[in-house]
């Protein structure tokens, strides 16, 4: 049978495998063919693995033996900052260009056990720092809807391979919106799970109190299946949580209440078409029978500044490990200090160096209290604000981004403009709440727009439920 890649989901593929309509090898070959014709132009994969067919054959054996898991034979693309043993993991950086992972990340281990197939590693902003994939040391990834525009970032490659039918699903990482923003720019679903729900063992650390691994998919159901498979307590990541860490509440027969933070989403800061789309989405929510409630979030105006202080502080600390001694690039100077200066100066890209300097600044003596400590104080207040709001509402709705996909080069000269793209997404990272971006329509130029649902800690199930209702009711 001819494989219709565009309309495939994990469940559909699984059923086709079981019925014998096509094999994992057939499917893998269909994706490889698509990659062959599209990737050169879009630059979404940094590497396509040369053993994909062998992986698929192993999956087929498992299927034939009647031992197929829901993810057996499902072709995944993996962001280049997640370790797969023996394969290069570069974080799209020169400093790790030839680095081979020495172990499997926990998410990879779980996917391998389930029999998933890894097609390749995807392009990203270097060390996940950016919102456009323009900061990759290996060239920008283009948006499949308009090749003159960015795919978003930092997980831009992961979004484009799914949108361009070069993989069924992908994994990204989200520190301030890096899964949700590219998903919204490419018309996809992107989930940032609750902090600690998915193990980060084997994910290159950027902002350790913010990072989470999340799926990028075509449907909320696919995101749910992947989340269910990869989440859980991990002895190798002490920040992972238990199923009962966050108290659950019974939602059966309860009408969900959706909160809209009106004071946060104003016409001045948001693109006109995104704003109109958001208003239309609220109207649709009401039509679907949900109760909509206006909410006020105090101190949220500081969230972006707080995020950039905490993230850069943590990133500058985490990236101190790249010293040209233990692994990665080594530049030889006259002495050890020169080795460090040259290796890091030449191996790390512009934005990465900028954030390291910013982090060093906010952590330096004399500024530590005014920036880093103060930011943590406000972070706590923001978290409390959300905790209180979630006593009144079940979900908060915002646009995912203030603009649709922007032109390549449009914001790369002005880092602050780029940072402002994250205004709606960073709060979920600062507070640890789960958030999902789902497609909500298109601009007049046919660029995808996304909107974001945020739930309280541990309530991914609410996000999946409401996202599925939206998909079913043609909000596209």
């Amino acid at each position, binding site marked *: 049978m001819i494989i219709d890649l565009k309309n495939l989901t994990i469940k559909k593929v699984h059923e086709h495998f079981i019925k014998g309509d096509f094999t994992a090898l057939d499917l893998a070959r269909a994706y490889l063919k698509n990659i062959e014709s599209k990737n050169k132009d879009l630059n979404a994969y940094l590497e396509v693995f040369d053993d994909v067919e062998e992986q698929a054959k192993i999956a087929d054996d498992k299927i034939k033996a009647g031992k197929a898991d829901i993810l057996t034979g499902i072709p995944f693309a993996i962001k280049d900052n997640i370790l797969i043993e023996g394969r290069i993991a570069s974080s799209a950086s020169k400093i790790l260009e030839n680095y081979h992972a020495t172990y499997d990340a926990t998410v990879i281990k779980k996917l391998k056990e389930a029999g998933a197939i890894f097609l390749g590693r995807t392009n990203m902003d270097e060390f996940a720092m950016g919102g456009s994939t323009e900061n990759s040391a290996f060239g920008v990834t283009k948006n499949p809807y308009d090749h003159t525009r960015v795919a978003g970032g930092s997980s831009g490659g992961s979004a484009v391979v799914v949108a361009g039918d070069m993989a069924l699903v992908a994994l990204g990482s989200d520190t301030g919106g890096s899964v949700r923003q590219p998903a919204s720019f490419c018309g996809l679903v992107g989930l940032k799970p609750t902090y*600690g729900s998915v193990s980060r063992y084997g994910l290159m650390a950027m902002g350790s109190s913010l990072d989470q691994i999340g799926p990028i998919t075509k449907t909320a159901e696919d995101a749910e299946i992947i989340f269910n498979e990869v989440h859980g307590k991990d002895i190798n990541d002490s920040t992972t949580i238990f199923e009962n860490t966050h108290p659950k509440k019974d939602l059966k027969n309860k009408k969900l209440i959706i909160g809209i933070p009106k004071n946060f989403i104003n016409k001045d800061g948001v693109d006109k078409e995104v704003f109109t789309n958001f208003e239309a989405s609220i109207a649709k929510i009401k039509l679907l029978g949900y109760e909509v409630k206006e909410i006020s979030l105090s101190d949220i105006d500081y969230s972006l500044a707080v995020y950039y202080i905490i993230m850069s502080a943590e990133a500058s600390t985490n990236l101190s490990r790249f010293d040209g001694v*233990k*692994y990665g690039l080594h530049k030889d100077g006259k002495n*050890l200090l020169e080795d460090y*200066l040259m290796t890091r100066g030449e191996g790390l890209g512009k934005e990465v160096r900028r954030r390291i300097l910013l982090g060093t600044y906010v952590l330096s003596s004399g500024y530590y209290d005014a920036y880093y400590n103060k930011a*943590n104080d406000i*972070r*706590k207040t923001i978290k409390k604000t959300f905790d209180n709001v979630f006593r009144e509402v079940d979900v908060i709705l915002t646009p995912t981004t203030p603009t649709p996909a922007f032109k390549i080069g449009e914001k790369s000269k002005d880092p602050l403009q780029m*940072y402002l793209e994250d205004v709606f997404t960073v709060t979920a990272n600062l507070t640890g709440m789960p958030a999902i971006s789902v497609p909500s329509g298109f601009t007049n130029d046919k660029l995808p727009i996304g909107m974001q649902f945020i739930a309280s800690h541990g309530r991914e199930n609410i996000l999946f439920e409401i996202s599925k209702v939206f998909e079913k009711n043609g909000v596209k």
Partner: protein
Amino acid sequence: MYMINAQDIEKLAGLARLSISEEEKEELTKNMGSILAYIDAIKKATEANKKANTEEIYGVRNVMREDSEPHQSGMYSEKILNEAPRREGDYVKVKKIL
């Protein structure tokens, strides 16, 4: 004027062990200046609670374990050493520090 000057950038780059070109110093002075002006807004936040501790912020406690049950000695050595830019036998080779 910007909130940061070329000397500050130089000092930070030294602390962070980064070599930075003269040309880039100028560019950084400008765009880090505007980023710092933006994040400076947090100084106006007055309602923030003082002394936030990590448990309150992250909702999780630090987890400790016994330093016991080591893996078999040498199990990972070769894989890890293979990634070192310079090695000598089973050691990572480094320039002298003093």
